[in-house]
């Protein structure tokens, strides 16, 4: 249950006033009444004691001054009802064996009062007894004082308490009103202003600033709103600038993406370029077969026509069979050339991104020979030993063949480059070797490309997979080959690509693909 500030203020004021009222109306009068009665009793007892002492002195020393003064003092008190001097006599029985103390009233003032010796206090009179003992006589002074004064005093106290309680209650109401006005109202105004600011209205200000802490809170609130408005203005301006910057950045990003795509395409074209000679060499072979066998078939057809004119059907049939056989070979080599062209076309096209079962051994071998022939086409003096070790257990695995093929080609091309460079440096006595092997271990396929070139310096190992990093002279490489290969293997195929190298001795790259 929410109790608002005004209610809390009123509850506090009412609690204080009620407690004070209880105190002044009940507790205080009662305490004062008891105090009055106790003091009254003590005073009367003291007076009785004084008179008794005076009587004793008067009897024993014949000095009546004390008792005279005490009696005059007591008689002058308007509350006096009576003062009696009692006499106690010892009365023996006839046998003188038992006695009784007989109390009689010796004298009483005023004379018209006749209190008995055994009178006790009641609601209207308080009786106090003070004994005296002398050789001549023993007795007591019996003092009776009226309670009217006490009752009157109690009533006065009660009336005063009522007046005070009412005054306090009235003052409490006024204080409550004043507090409610000076605390609750400005706080509520502050709350309303804060709510409107929260809704977005930054023109809200707290008016009527008081000269106290709440006033300071109001000033701080107004300053906060001003600062908020200023900040919002600045934010809006920055927002506009930011939007322009974002637009520029978007354009730049688009250009970068385009450039990236172009670079990748360039890389593809570059690798394709690397393959061109190899491809040409590879195509040349089947085309040679096609050409040669086609020429042979032309000659055979001429022979067959000649035999036909001679009606030599047996020779004609034999020649026809030869022609058919040659046509099969032409078809075979034609398909070879066709598949090579198709493969290269696929290589030049963008990756479809669709994985499909691919013979890794075939792929690796094809790109090895293409790369080698491509390099030999450019450097006729270049020779290298090609070593292969393909694990038949590898079989087909689900990969994007264009992409993995590009990776294998990149590694092989780099290996050939490395051994070629070393050959240039070392010259005679150095035998370049490039080895490609595949292995299936468990649910992983390992494709290894190893060379005995110059290797990679240890300080560059961490950089070789970074985009645009290359150790080749300017113009000879885009620096994207290994970076693209790394992304294809790790991000697209969830594989790994590792390098082991000894500077001056060679390098080994291993592609690990999950089956």
């Amino acid at each position, binding site marked *: 249950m929410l109790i608002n500030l005004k209610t809390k203020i009123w509850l506090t004021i009412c609690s204080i006033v009620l407690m004070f009222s209880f105190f002044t109306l009940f507790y205080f009068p009662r305490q004062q009444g008891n105090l009055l009665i106790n003091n009254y009793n003590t005073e009367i007892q003291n007076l009785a004691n004084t008179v008794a002492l005076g009587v004793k002195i*008067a009897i024993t020393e014949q000095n*009546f001054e004390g*008792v*005279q003064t005490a*009696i005059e003092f007591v008689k002058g008190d308007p509350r006096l009802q009576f003062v009696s*001097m009692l006499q106690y006599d010892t009365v023996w029985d006839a046998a003188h064996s038992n006695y009784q103390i007989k109390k009689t009233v010796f*004298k009483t*003032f005023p004379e018209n009062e006749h209190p008995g010796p055994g009178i006790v206090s009641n609601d209207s009179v308080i009786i106090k007894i003070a004994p005296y003992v002398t050789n001549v006589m023993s007795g007591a002074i019996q003092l009776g004082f009226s309670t009217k004064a006490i009752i009157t005093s109690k009533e006065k106290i009660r009336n005063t308490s009522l007046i005070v309680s009412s005054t306090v209650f009235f003052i409490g109401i006024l204080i409550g009103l004043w507090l409610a006005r000076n605390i609750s109202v400005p706080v509520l105004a502050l709350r309303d202003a804060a709510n409107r600011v929260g809704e977005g209205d930054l023109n809200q200000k707290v008016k009527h600033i008081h000269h106290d802490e709440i006033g300071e809170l109001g000033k701080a609130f107004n300053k906060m709103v001003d600062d908020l408005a200023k900040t919002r203005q600045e934010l809006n301006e920055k927002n506009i600038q930011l939007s322009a910057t974002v637009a520029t950045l978007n354009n730049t990003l688009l250009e970068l993406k385009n450039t990236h795509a172009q670079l990748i395409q360039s890389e593809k074209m570059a690798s394709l370029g690397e393959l061109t000679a190899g491809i040409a060499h590879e195509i040349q072979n089947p085309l040679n077969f096609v050409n040669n066998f086609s020429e042979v078939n032309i000659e055979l057809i001429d022979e067959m026509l000649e035999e036909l004119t001679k009606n030599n059907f047996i020779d004609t049939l034999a020649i026809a069979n030869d022609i058919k056989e040659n046509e099969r070979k032409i078809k075979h080599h034609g398909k070879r050339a066709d598949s090579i062209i198709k493969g290269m076309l696929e290589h030049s096209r963008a990756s479809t991104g669709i994985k499909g079962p691919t013979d890794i051994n075939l792929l690796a071998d094809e790109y090895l020979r293409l790369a080698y022939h491509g390099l030999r086409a450019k450097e006729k003096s270049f020779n290298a030993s090609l070593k292969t070790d393909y694990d038949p257990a590898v079989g087909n695995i689900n990969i994007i063949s264009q992409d993995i093929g590009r990776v294998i080609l990149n590694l092989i091309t780099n290996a050939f480059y490395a051994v070629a460079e070393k050959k240039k440096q070392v010259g005679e006595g150095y035998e370049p070797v490039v080895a490609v092997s595949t292995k299936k271990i468990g649910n992983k396929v390992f494709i290894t490309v190893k060379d005995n070139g110059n290797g990679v310096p240890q300080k560059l190992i961490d950089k070789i997979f970074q985009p645009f990093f290359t150790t080749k002279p300017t113009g000879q490489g885009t620096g994207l080959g290994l970076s693209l290969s790394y992304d294809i293997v790790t991000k697209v195929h969830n594989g790994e690509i590792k390098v082991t190298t000894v500077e001056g001795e060679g390098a080994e790259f291993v592609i690990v693909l999950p089956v």
Partner: protein
Amino acid sequence: MLLAFNMNKQLLSLYKKLRAFGYARVMLAIFVLSFSLVAKSQEAPLSAVGNPLGAPADMKLAELKSILLGEKQRWKNGNRIIIALMKTNTQIGKNTSARIYDMTGDQLNKYWLALVFQGKAQAPTFFNSTSDLETFVAQTPGAIGIVDKPTIDGDVKPVSINGQKTF
């Protein structure tokens, strides 16, 4: 009184001894005679002294008794009557108590206590010596006191009772 009491005690002792010898009657007569002699010695004369401002030079014994009993409270000149007496444990006090008031000392105390209690009179002032009494009377206007012999002090005046200096 004390002297008489002591004498009687000795005579009583003598009586007890002589009784043994059969002279009881004779000794009893002697005992009674000695007591009466002692009693007669108590009736010593008394004198009244007063302050010049108040007490007259002469008054009747009845008036004196009335004053000393507290029945009369003021002199003719309007001054309040202040009574000065010797304490009843003195011979003069005893005489005064017996002859004027016809009371013992204790009875006198009770008498004045009753009057004071009821506010009917002001109690006398009691003294141990006549010189103190006379000094008090000399210094207190309206005071009157009872002593054994007339004073020769000029500050107090003797008051004749029934024309006599002593009574």
